[in-house]
């Protein structure tokens, strides 16, 4: 079984981003970029499935600018077998990504496409679902446990107030949630070895996919800063403020 794992290059989770002074977006120039953490979880799970013998090959894909190659090298260091970079402009929209992935799925014929549930930069939570729709495949989203049993994928999903297990016929789409696993480190020996693993580069424009942007960003603003607190002198004053100022009791 072959697994396709799309990975996105995003601003590192440790970095506090700031809104550009003209309010058109956030400043990303010169910031540390890393693999989307949910995609790391997907890579880890795919590699574990291969290590358990449930899968034979893990192919990592990234769609975006040339530097996304670094993200793919991380996936290779974690254990992916080979990688494909599709060159497009920075951060294409989920629908365009899903359409590109559909082309790659038709070419690579994986039985499982394993994605992160969402990217931490735009929090869209859409690509996996759109890809399932475009391919007409079953989907198990927000996975906290995945097992391949008798040619089916048993996926435990995180849902409101509990969990739900679905059984999917393959090929299928699975998107990873936070509790699925804790990804391994890309160790130094494995980073060195990853340099020698195959990485193929394709031009997004050659794939016959409409990449037109359909969404318009109206404005981006920072959340209002929290007001300084005050010290109250007595319980009575606190109750009075909660009732009349905050209007919460």
């Amino acid at each position, binding site marked *: 079984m072959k697994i396709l794992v799309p990975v996105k290059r995003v601003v590192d989770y440790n970095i506090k981003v700031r809104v550009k*002074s003209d309010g058109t977006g956030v400043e990303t120039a010169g910031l540390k970029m890393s693999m989307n953490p949910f995609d790391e979880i997907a890579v880890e799970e795919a590699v574990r499935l291969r290590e358990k013998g449930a899968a034979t090959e893990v192919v990592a894909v990234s769609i975006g600018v040339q530097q996304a190659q670094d993200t793919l090298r991380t996936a290779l260091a974690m254990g992916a077998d080979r990688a494909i970079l599709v060159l497009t402009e920075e951060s294409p929209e989920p629908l365009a990504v899903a359409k590109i992935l559909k082309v790659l799925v038709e070419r690579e014929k994986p039985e499982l496409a394993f994605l992160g549930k969402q990217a931490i930069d735009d929090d869209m939570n859409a690509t996996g679902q759109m890809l399932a729709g475009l391919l007409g495949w079953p989907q198990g989203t927000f996975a906290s446990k995945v097992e391949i049993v008798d040619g089916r994928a048993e996926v435990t999903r995180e849902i409101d107030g509990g969990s739900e297990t679905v059984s999917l016929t393959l090929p299928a789409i699975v998107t990873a949630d936070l509790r699925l696993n804790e990804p*391994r480190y890309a160790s*130094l020996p494995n980073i*060195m070895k990853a340099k020698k693993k195959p990485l193929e580069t394709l031009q997004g424009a050659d794939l016959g996919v409409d990449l037109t942007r359909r969404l318009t960003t109206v404005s981006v603003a920072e959340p209002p800063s929290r007001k300084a607190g005050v010290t109250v002198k007595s319980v009575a004053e606190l109750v009075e403020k909660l009732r009349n100022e905050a209007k919460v009791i």
Partner: protein
Amino acid sequence: MSEREAMDFDVVIVGGGPAGLAAAIRLRQLRPEATVCLIEKGSEIGAHIVSGAVIEPRALDELLPDWRTMDSPVKTAVSEEEMYFLTETKGYRIPALDRVMPHLANHGNYVVSLGEVCRWLAGVAEEMGVEIYPGFAGAEVLIENNRVVGVATGDMGITRDGEHGPNYAPGMELRGKYTLFAEGCRGSLTKRVMAHYDLRKGVDPQTYGLGIKEVWEIPPEKHRPGLVMHSFGWPLDDHTYGGSWLYHFGENLVSYGFVTGLDYENTWLSPFDEMQRTKLHPVFRPHFEGGRRLIYGARALSEGGLQSIPRLTFPGGALIGDSAGFLNTPKIKGTHTAMKSGMLAAEAVVEALATERVEPGSFTQRVRNSWLYEELKSARNIRPAFARWGMKAGALYAGVDAMLLRGRAPWTLHYRHADNETLRPASLSEPISYPKPDGKITFDKLSSVFLSNTNHAEDQPVHLHVENMPLWKTVNWDVFRAPESRYCPAGVYEVADQETDPRLVINSQNCVHCKTCDIKDPAQNIDWVTPEGGGGPNYPAGM
């Protein structure tokens, strides 16, 4: 140990700052077939770089003669320069700066983000075939038959109790015919190498400064690209060495910072608060009004100069950059000297590779024959003059030394004390009252550390080793009232239960890797070791 993998290289370089990167580039220029591996503890190159920075392009001209036509981040030429002596309410501008303080003449120099310069140099080095691995800390020096044979990176995934966690990954041995230590000021491996080979024998103690920096974005109408300002005097007293800088560069950016000499005596002094309150002085305040603070960081620097430089080579390697202490303190610049030292070490290593010599010993002679030595020699008496006679008399001496003697004084002033020996007990130190942060121009420590994007993987062992806790109580608390809680610019050290049973709390996850505790702790009871690779600050572009 046997489970560790190992890899062989011609040269292993520890640290991806200007010295390490310049050495790497020079090595491949002189010997393209040499295998060069460079590791950096920051999550990426530049992530741990803090500097003003006004750089002199002399070393860069020699390393990459075409740099002006390359797409480099060295763009803002110095356009105006002002030096102030401050009193609490007034600023006196020093006239005829280029004659009175010729070290500070900055014509032809550039205001840069040194982190960006390092990222650019790393790209150049990688294109030339240098293997660069950020996110891996050199945790151990490998010494065999009394020769340094490389370093080992730290293990990953060790839990706080020292056990192997579920994601445990052993470190790796990077073995090199020669190893260059380019860790910057007070490198943790450099410290071990110096001790093992007794490299500091016969030289003055090193003396240090702590630089604390902020980057601001200011309204375009206030921005004067290339403006370079410095000050000394207030808020420090006459016995405390230090001062501020403020540079306009890039797109509406201002680099502001404050250096405090770590030979300060008053245990109540807080370098962080000195840095904050200086922004309120009428000379500086207008630059910040209407702006917003973007980045915060801190790093110690070596100020001793020539007298404090240790023996530079040992069997199997050399110390370069601020690991050795090549900063030119009167010039307030260390980038060009760090780069030059890296280049000269690379030349010595190439010679040693060809002749299979154990020690790249020609490095020392190459330094002596270069402008680097001339420059440090002529500057050698200025910093110790401040240490001996205070700021005003020291400045007077500096003027005489520069104008009349032109750095050729027939004497050399020495440093008498290491920085950990200078602190006065709390009972003999005058308390200092610092203004409360206003949240607009001045800020508290924690909101500042937030802007350094500092992160350490959770559940790892504390990387700040207090070797002897009872000694902390009797010395640090009883005598000095926990100076670490004031000099640490990241709020790592706190004292809990002060009234009843004082004990030290170490918030190691806040550490910005400035190394001040390792330097200033009175009993040398705090040992700074590398945390898990990739941890520490994540300074973005602009820093």
